[in-house]
């Protein structure tokens, strides 16, 4: 378990500065929610943190080791990444999709060793997919697909999990399920980074929060510290954060 | 004007020529033209054979190509045309020799332009060759030369009839598979030389290597090796199985010798007979 640290990361694309001088630490074993308006640079931040995008300036280190120097396959074994709006090109079975999460664990030649069969079964069970294991992935509903993707991401028991809007388009029940799964991963010791639009959900499950606006990190700290002022500044909208025994709710004017 | 009417008879004659061979129309002009223009590769041969260079105004570009012309050397100094009616207008000959294979549109154009014209069919047999040579000779005022050429051909053919070559089984093989079909000049020459053309009369597709292997002729008749053009047809014409099998058993019959009916076919057949005798000697 190691900290994921971004130091002065800058990303430019097509003349625009998408991320400017971002310095963030994603602490080990904690769930960090990345929030901010559309176009703030959340997806870019996640891609850089996952090691899939090289910043134009700054560095990314995992437990002190620069991400750029880590072998791609070795990194793939430790880190799972879920992009926005995942789609599956061929009608392969759900079980097969989950198994793909173990691609980096495949030996040079041949199929997965038998011992991984258990990991797949476990991932399927954990995300309530056992009855769907032989269903074609292209025939799944939005909620089912989201569960499958999470199962795919967690099957290899990564120490780092980054998810970009995993609850997009999900109804409240499925969104809560997905959020609960992410929380469970964090509780098990995984470093989880999630970009979320749903603020109530974000504050509900997150230990830490990173607020991005216009490519800059406005705030980075404990989720408990998120207040009305921050949300108002972030989204240019009056907001009220209410914390009570039922949980956390963010209301907008 | 009566021009339209005056054109009708020659036109009908020309139309009849398209079907039959060598019953040419006689030109209306003088008996000894000094600027003769030939519009077709085969009429080139006849014109070149009968006339001295000074009296030939133009021949086609094919006349200089040794792949298709027996008299290519003679044609080198003579201006060339592309066989188009426009070329006639610029040359201004006093006799145009065209073939019945010239397109009817071109023939019609030439008549409209008013040039004295002789249309010759493509002769496919010795008899037709005699008629064509005599007709062209008469039109260019060289009857004696024409008779000499015909006599030479007849002499050669008589010699071959008297002492034909050994009756070896032969088949012509080229870019399109089996060649020298019955009635073609190639077949006439091969048969006159004494060979037995087994490629004739075989049904089915001509381009079958399996069929050739089954026919198994003693000699394979091929074109002049100097004129090989690269292309896909090489797979058929020069397939390794064939090349190996008949490597030392080929008989060369250059395209230039049989593509047109000329009075030289007698000489050609004599050359074939010599090759047949040499081949028989090698085997025996």
């Amino acid at each position: 378990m190691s900290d994921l640290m971004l130091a002065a990361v800058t990303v430019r694309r097509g003349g625009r500065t998408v991320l400017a001088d971002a310095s963030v630490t994603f602490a080990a074993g904690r769930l960090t929610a990345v929030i901010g308006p559309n176009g703030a640079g959340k997806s870019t931040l996640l891609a850089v943190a996952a090691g899939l995008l090289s910043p134009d300036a700054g560095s990314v280190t995992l437990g002190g080791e620069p991400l750029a120097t880590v072998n791609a396959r070795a990194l793939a074994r430790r880190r799972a990444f879920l992009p926005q709006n995942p789609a599956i090109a061929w009608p392969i079975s759900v079980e097969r999709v989950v198994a793909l999460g173990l691609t980096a664990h495949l030996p040079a030649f041949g199929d997965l060793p038998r011992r991984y069969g258990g990991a797949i079964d476990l991932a399927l069970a954990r995300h309530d997919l056992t009855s769907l294991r032989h269903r074609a992935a292209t025939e799944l509903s939005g909620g089912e697909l989201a569960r499958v993707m999470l199962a795919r991401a967690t099957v290899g028991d990564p120490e780092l999990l980054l998810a970009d809007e995993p609850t997009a388009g999900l109804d409240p029940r499925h969104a809560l399920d997905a959020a609960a799964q992410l929380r469970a991963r964090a509780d098990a010791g995984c470093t989880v980074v999630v970009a979320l639009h749903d603020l109530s959900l974000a504050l509900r499950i997150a230990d830490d929060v990173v607020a991005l606006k216009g490519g800059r990190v406005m705030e980075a700290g404990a989720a408990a510290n998120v207040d009305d002022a921050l949300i108002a500044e972030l989204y240019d909208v009056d907001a009220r954060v209410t914390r009570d025994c039922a949980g956390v709710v963010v209301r907008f004017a | 004007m009566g021009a339209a009417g005056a054109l009708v008879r020659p036109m009908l004659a020309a139309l009849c020529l398209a079907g039959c061979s060598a019953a040419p129309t006689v030109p209306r002009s003088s008996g000894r033209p000094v600027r003769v223009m030939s519009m077709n590769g085969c009429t080139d041969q006849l014109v070149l054979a009968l006339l001295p260079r000074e009296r030939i105004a133009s021949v086609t570009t094919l006349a200089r190509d040794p792949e298709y012309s027996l008299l290519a050397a003679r044609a080198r100094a003579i201006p060339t045309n592309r066989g188009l009616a426009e070329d006639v207008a610029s040359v201004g000959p006093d006799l145009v020799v065209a073939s019945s294979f010239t397109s009817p549109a071109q023939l019609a154009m030439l008549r409209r332009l008013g040039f004295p014209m002789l249309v010759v069919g493509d002769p496919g047999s010795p008899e037709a060759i005699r008629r064509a040579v005599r007709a062209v000779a008469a039109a260019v005022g060289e009857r004696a030369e024409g008779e000499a050429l015909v006599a030479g051909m007849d002499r050669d053919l008589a010699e071959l009839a008297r002492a034909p070559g050994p009756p070896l089984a032969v088949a012509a093989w080229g870019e399109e598979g089996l060649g020298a079909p019955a009635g073609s000049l190639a077949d006439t020459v091969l048969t006159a030389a004494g060979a037995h053309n087994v490629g004739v009369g075989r049904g089915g597709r001509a381009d079958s290597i399996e069929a050739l292997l089954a026919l198994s002729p003693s000699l394979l008749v091929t074109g002049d090796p100097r004129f090989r053009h690269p292309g896909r047809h090489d797979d058929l014409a020069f397939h390794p199985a064939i090349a190996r099998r008949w490597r030392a058993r080929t008989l060369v019959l250059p395209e230039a010798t049989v593509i047109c009916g000329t009075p030289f076919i007698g000489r050609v057949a004599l050359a074939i007979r010599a090759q047949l005798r040499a081949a028989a000697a090698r085997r025996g």
Partner: protein
Amino acid sequence: MSARPPLLVAMLAGLLLVAAAASLLAGELWIRPSEVGAALFGHGETLAGMVVRELRLPRLVLAVLVGGILGLSGAVLQGLTRNPLAEPGLLGVSAGASLGAVLAIYYGLSSVLPIATPLAGLTGALLVTGVALLLARGGGTVTLILAGAAVTSIAGAGISLALNLAPNPYAAYEIMTWLLGSLADRSWDQVALAAPFILGGGALLLPTARALDALALGEAQARSLGIDLGRTRLLALFGTALGVGAATAVTGAVGFVGLVAPHVVRPLVSHRPAATLMPATLAGGLLVVLADLVTRLVHVGPELKLGVVTALVGAPFFLWLVLHLRRTAP
């Protein structure tokens, strides 16, 4: 993991053997099964022996190699682009390779250096495949197919022009062979020329299997799984160019094999891209062997070109596929 791929491979291999046997026996000269053994292994100069060893066997070997590489390339390109309509024929690769080969053969280069033929085909294929893969990333399916059609037209016009201008006056009549493909009268010379490149191309294409599986989740996820996408694309590019380029240089452009073969086997391997590679190779070989057999057995007029037969099967399939995709996709 599922045991079905090995079973499918065995079945396809078996079918291929049967088709191969038929291919050796049938033709203008029907050879009895009892004669085949002597024909294949005997040294005598019997007619059957010559026909089988010099004519039918090289033709059969070439059919398997060409069909195989087309099927394999189609499977890889479909997996890489995640597009069920991708294949070397539709993308214009075969046409580009034909153009390269025509320039080499008819302008004397290959007479001097026989290996110029597959090399020229390879170059033509490389250029076109590169363009196609570039387009596949940016635009959608329609762009890709349209670009392929455009390239095929341009290459076809180029071939026609090259043949018309060639020194050989009969060259222009051979355009059909280049645009529709033919295995007629191929000899061991051509097998020796093309086989190393075809096998080399296959060797570059087969290792993309794992990447293709991961790509089912999209490029971002595939990369996050440790797949080197750049390397995968290069392998697909050079494998296709090498294999299909050399094959086309020797047979002309054979269409639709790379489209049909992967589609036929995909449902039988649960749609797993990696699992389609070997079966598509065998299915492609089977398809071409059978098509070639048809061209030899049908006796209407001049020789039926190979591409005509594959198009008779492939074009309706292509149409059905397009309609099917329209119905299922948004």
